[in-house]
């Protein structure tokens, strides 16, 4: 950990965050809004990378955790009018509980089976949201009466602050002894178990931490949008974007995942003039990165630094 504060990565990250925090002083509200969403998305991707990159588990259903957090917070606010902050905390807690319930059986199975269980969880959640339309707003979406603030600059700072704190915690965790055990159990569960580590407990912890940050970020996003809908926080396509962001940025780097998410959202906006081809181009770029730079952006940059 001490090495990290001397490394180039730390200084670059620090400079980037400082520059990013001054943005509201001179860029338009439109760009701020875009980046606000991108930062929340970055937390989704980082939380996913903790599971995939370190615990070696492909979670095809990041939106299950995100959606539970987002909808819990939204429904509580809509139905009972509780304060925004209480709703956000309860949303994150609901995501943790949902993650725990999902992880207990899911972690018994490996590889593709785990992926499918998590994917099915998303599909079930999606079905229930549509079936209980009176409570959830169904396919139209849930309108949320309160927002944190309507000031674009403040919203931006909240998102940036939240992403930075999440990044520090998740990155710190990934470099800690717990992170190393996770990495070991992801790569060779038998050997890691033989060394006396409780793999299931570690993976469960990783799942819960991932669920906490996904749910918290989902709840915050809902109060930024002022609405929650299947298309923005639950749909499988959203989950695919989270996965693509993490792989693009570089798996097993945590910070790269945030980078990938910001790239994905900003690139999508730049490609807007190409209309319906935007998603095609983004997927094609992501596929090329997967094929030729499997380490992702940050992976490629770090390995170059390591060589020089």
């Amino acid at each position: 950990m001490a090495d990290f504060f001397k490394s180039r990565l730390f200084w670059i990250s620090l400079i980037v965050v400082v520059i990013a925090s001054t943005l509201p002083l001179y860029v338009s509200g439109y760009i701020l809004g875009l980046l606000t969403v991108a930062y929340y998305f970055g937390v989704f991707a980082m939380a996913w990378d903790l599971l995939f990159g370190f615990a070696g588990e492909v979670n095809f259903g990041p939106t299950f955790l995100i959606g539970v957090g987002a909808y819990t917070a939204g429904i509580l606010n809509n139905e009972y009018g509780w304060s925004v902050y209480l709703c956000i905390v309860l949303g994150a807690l609901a995501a943790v509980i949902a993650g725990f319930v999902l992880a207990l059986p899911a972690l018994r199975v490996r590889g593709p089976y785990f992926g499918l269980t998590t994917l099915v969880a998303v599909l079930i959640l999606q079905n229930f949201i549509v079936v209980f339309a009176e409570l959830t707003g169904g396919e139209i979406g849930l309108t949320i009466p309160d927002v944190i603030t309507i000031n674009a600059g403040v919203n931006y700072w909240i998102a940036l602050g939240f992403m930075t704190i999440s990044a520090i915690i998740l990155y710190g965790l990934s470099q800690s002894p717990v992170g190393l055990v996770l990495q070991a159990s992801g790569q060779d569960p038998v050997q890691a178990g033989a060394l006396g580590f409780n793999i299931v407990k570690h993976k469960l912890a990783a799942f819960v931490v991932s669920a906490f940050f996904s749910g918290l970020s989902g709840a915050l996003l809902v109060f930024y949008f002022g609405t929650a809908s299947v298309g923005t926080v639950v749909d499988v396509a959203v989950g695919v974007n989270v996965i693509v962001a993490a792989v693009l940025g570089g798996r097993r780097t945590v910070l790269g995942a945030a980078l990938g998410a910001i790239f994905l959202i900003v690139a999508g906006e730049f490609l807007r003039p190409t209309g319906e081809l935007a998603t095609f181009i983004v997927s094609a770029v992501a596929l090329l990165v997967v094929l030729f730079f499997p380490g992702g952006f940050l992976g490629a940059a770090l390995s170059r630094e390591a060589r020089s």
Partner: protein
Amino acid sequence: MLAFQILIDGFAISALYALGATGFTLIFGVSGVLNLSHGAIMVLAAVAAWAGASMLHMNTYEGALLGVVVALVAAFATYFAVVQPIQRSRRIPNEEKEIFVLTGTLLWGIMIQELIAYFFTNNAKTVLPIVEGVMDIFGVRTPRNEIFTAVVCCLVIGLLWALVNRTRTGKAVLAASMNPRGVTLLGLELTNIYIVVWAIYGILAGIAGVLLGMFLGVSSYSVGPLTASAFSIVVLGGLGSVSGSLIAAFVVGYLETLTAYLVSPAYRTIPALLLLVIVMYIRPQGLLGRR
């Protein structure tokens, strides 16, 4: 009356699911690849058949053939452009290849889906059926096309069974799914076997896609649900077990039809999903899985 209706409709849907899932499970059984662009390839076949009939003025047979050929080409493209480079890559550690294949084929599927949406719009398309009209079975008015779908599905699956169990090539494929190293030691080139499997897969996915287009219609939105349903049927049956997926396809097909008729079409997919979760709890390797 309702019982017969459910029996007949359920059979047609299940047969179609079975055909769609067979190719998917075959590839996994032989080369360990989970092809998440499966739904996109099926939709592509249906859209090609539709475009052949409505834009190139082909008759329904030529259109259907075009659909199958396009699916075959797409299957080869998936293998040579996405799967093989990942399997041969030296930069991807071996234990992570599975995950990269999943991500790569997923992205590939999205690319196909977006291209379909771009050139042919997102609107639902129904391929003109080869046989038209309705007929009476036990007092249930059934479209002839539905019977045609069920018959073709059963025939193709029967042919596949004969191919795998009765021909030399088929036996090589079967052997490769049991022990790839053993097959190589016998002097058979593994890559050739993979190419054969992908060809079979392309044809199966193509036929399933075209039939789906005739029976229910497709749009680029059906890509995700199609992949997900093939994936769940295959896992329910046991990854890599063809007979397992056949059973699972009928379980899922009938469960969905029962729910749609007896409860509400809105709840159609929920019982099947819950069943899948229960099976994962109790028997993670699926109904007939080997692991």
